[in-house]
């Protein structure tokens, strides 16, 4: 019974979500429903409101309008228990970098109610998979950007969450790791997890997403699978599509002007 119910109810839904910072509207009524087992590519130009949406869903942002539901419950009233089922990799890649990888993973695990021994063991196994076995006891402050990003990804998955928010999770990762991670995403979706993936790297989004949501100027400008979007627009890649939907055509001109300015010393 329960299983059937949850499968039908959207795992995530936003209704007329609005938000403004000191009078300037950032979200102008976003409506979105997501079912489980999907990888959503959440894209949009800088300042379109992507981070704001994610912040609202994670309970970091108060004072928004409309309703946001996760796992069927309004997050304004549901308390904090829902966060146990969420994994998050922030764009800012903030960590407590005085800690070693082992300490950080045990700590985040603990925040999600994971027993220390278990978190440590799982963390170590996952680190091994990413080829980081030898730095398990090194402080994060001496990690390279890519290594740190891997730790963040592991930390977001330790507690086996049902819904994942990945904000630019690939930044700094080498090509091989990217390959592994894309595969991981697909597998995660297969097991019924929902991934909310926002990024500016269009070819990755194009390949991994079941559904692409494009946010532009605080509103959803396009929503559908890549094939669907492509059918409407007759454009080649997602990048072209992105440029078209956001009304951006001058890239060649800007590049030319830019370089000519560089040459003038």
């Amino acid at each position, binding site marked *: 019974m329960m299983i059937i119910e949850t499968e039908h109810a959207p795992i995530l839904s936003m209704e007329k979500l609005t938000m403004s*910072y*000191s009078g*300037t509207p950032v979200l102008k009524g976003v409506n979105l429903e997501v079912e489980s087992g999907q990888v959503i590519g959440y894209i949009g130009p800088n300042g379109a409101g992507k981070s704001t949406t994610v912040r609202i869903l*994670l*309970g*970091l*942002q*108060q004072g928004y309008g409309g309703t946001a539901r996760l796992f069927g419950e309004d997050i304004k009233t549901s*308390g*904090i*228990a*829902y*966060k*146990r089922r*969420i994994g*998050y990799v*922030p764009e*800012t890649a*903030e*960590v*407590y970098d*005085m*800690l070693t990888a082992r*300490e950080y993973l*045990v*700590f*985040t695990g*603990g*925040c*999600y*109610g994971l027993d220390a021994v278990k978190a440590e063991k799982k963390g170590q196994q996952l680190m091994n998979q990413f080829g980081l076995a030898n730095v398990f006891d*090194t*402080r994060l*402050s*001496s990690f390279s950007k890519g290594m740190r990003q891997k730790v963040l990804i592991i930390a977001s998955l330790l507690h086996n969450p049902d819904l994942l928010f990945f904000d630019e999770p690939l930044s700094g990762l080498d090509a091989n790791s990217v390959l592994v991670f894309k595969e991981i995403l697909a597998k995660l979706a297969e097991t019924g997890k929902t991934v909310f993936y926002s990024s500016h790297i269009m070819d990755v989004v194009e390949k991994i997403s079941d559904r692409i949501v494009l946010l532009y100027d605080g509103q959803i400008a396009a929503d559908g699978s890549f094939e669907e979007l492509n059918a409407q627009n007759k454009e080649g890649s997602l990048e072209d599509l992105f440029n078209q939907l956001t009304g951006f055509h001058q890239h060649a001109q800007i590049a030319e002007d830019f370089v000519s300015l560089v040459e003038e010393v």
Partner: protein
Amino acid sequence: MKESRFLKITDLMRPVFEKLGVNYAVMRHVLAVKLLMDARRMPIVLASGRQKKKKDSNLFLKSLWVYALVGLFVVPFIFLSSDYLFKTSLIFAIILFMVMTAMIADFSSVLLDTRDQAILWTKPIDARTLHAAKTVHLCIYLILLTGALGLPAAIAGLMRFGLGFFLLFLLNLIFIDLISLSCTTFVYLLVLKFFDGERLKDIINYVQIFLSLAVAVSYQFVIRAFDVTATHITLTPAWWQLFVPPLWLASTIEWVIGGQRTAFLSLLALLGLLMPFILFSIYQRFSNAFEQAVIKLTVQAGKSRTQSGKLNHLLGKLLCRNLEERTFFRFSSLMMKQDRTFKLKVYPSLGMALVFPFIFLINNFHGSSWHQIGQGSGFFYAYFSLLVIPTALMMLRCSSTFKGAWIYGAAPIKQRHSIFSGALKAMITQLYLPAYFLLSVVFLLLFRWTIIPDLVAILLTASIFTIICSHYCLGESFPFSEPFDAQPSTGNFMVLFLFLIAGLFAAAHAIVRAILPGYGVFIYIACLLAANLLVWKTGLRGKD
């Protein structure tokens, strides 16, 4: 993970936390990590790649001995021949002053930590628990701090007045912690409620600066409350004394052991007993609101105003010899003006440099008229403006964006000393000169035009003093290349030591004036000018 000893103590209080609705297991977990991280606050990543694990050491704990020394200086007050009220008022005022300053300058970052938001708020941790973790974290430090400051006096009191005094004194030390914690938080909460975005961050900065100044000035109120005559020191009741916390606390001691039980004193004592609890329960009540409000600090919205800085350009052209130096002059000016942490650490001392001369003037010339003051040599207090220099230079190596320092290595800089000279000149123009001019204007009104040469001498001294201080304060590190650490910015002995050197300059100035009245000052100025040329030419050569 090695666990901190403090956690064993909080474990004992577990039922209390649970009664307050805190998820103790989670709080302990967060607290353990915070304490571990404090123990690791370490010199920068730049040089060290993957160093061997050094012994974890908490910088704050190391700096405690500095506070303990200040605590020793307080001890003589115990032996003053007066009633309990006067001496304990003074002691508590000094301790409260030190604690508040540390709270504002050093521990505000714990209260307003925005990194917590991204890392902890996204986890299933409720606001109350998070706030409790913060509170306990701060309380541990505050109790250690007041312990270091108060224990010497408490022990002296134990020997002189017995156990009752000792226990009451310790209780009051805890009250001081509660008062300073809740008051600071309360002020922050108000500010967080009423402002938004970039403006909020600016306002917070000004409030912090204002608070530390207010604390310094309000210290005066304690002394003013008493009538000091040759034989007796008595409290003269007035309504405003009801708002002076050290008086409350001292009154409880006086009421219990000293035996003075007038109606006014009883009222003060009652306040001393109740207010810490009232304030703390208000603090507790608003914990949720506070944590919600802190999130506002992470939002990046609104534009910060940029000034054209024409004056700065002009000064750069006037003061700097080449493009390189001018570049770093401008860069340093901007950094000093815009780094909020830097401002927070330095501006309070800027304020004190402005306020101290007047406090001393007024205290020393008790009862004499302004005209009489104008005849004297009170303008020597303008030397207090030099206090800005060592404090600013101690912080000059630090920046909240210290990682940007790679530019020093990457850019083809011909003369590395121009980085330093540019930064030092920027410090003088940005921080010292405004204070100096303000003081000069007021002093000229007070002491008339005859002191102009003396003021010029002070300005020239400041310039020499800057180079002297830079040797002790900056060392080899580039400006803005290290993170701010938990070291206290106040009560720093290096600053005191350097300020003594400034005192030597003042003494030299006074001697010249005494031996050669009239033209002596001009000879002194000429000497200073020559010294300036020499010092600026050679003083920074070592940096290349």
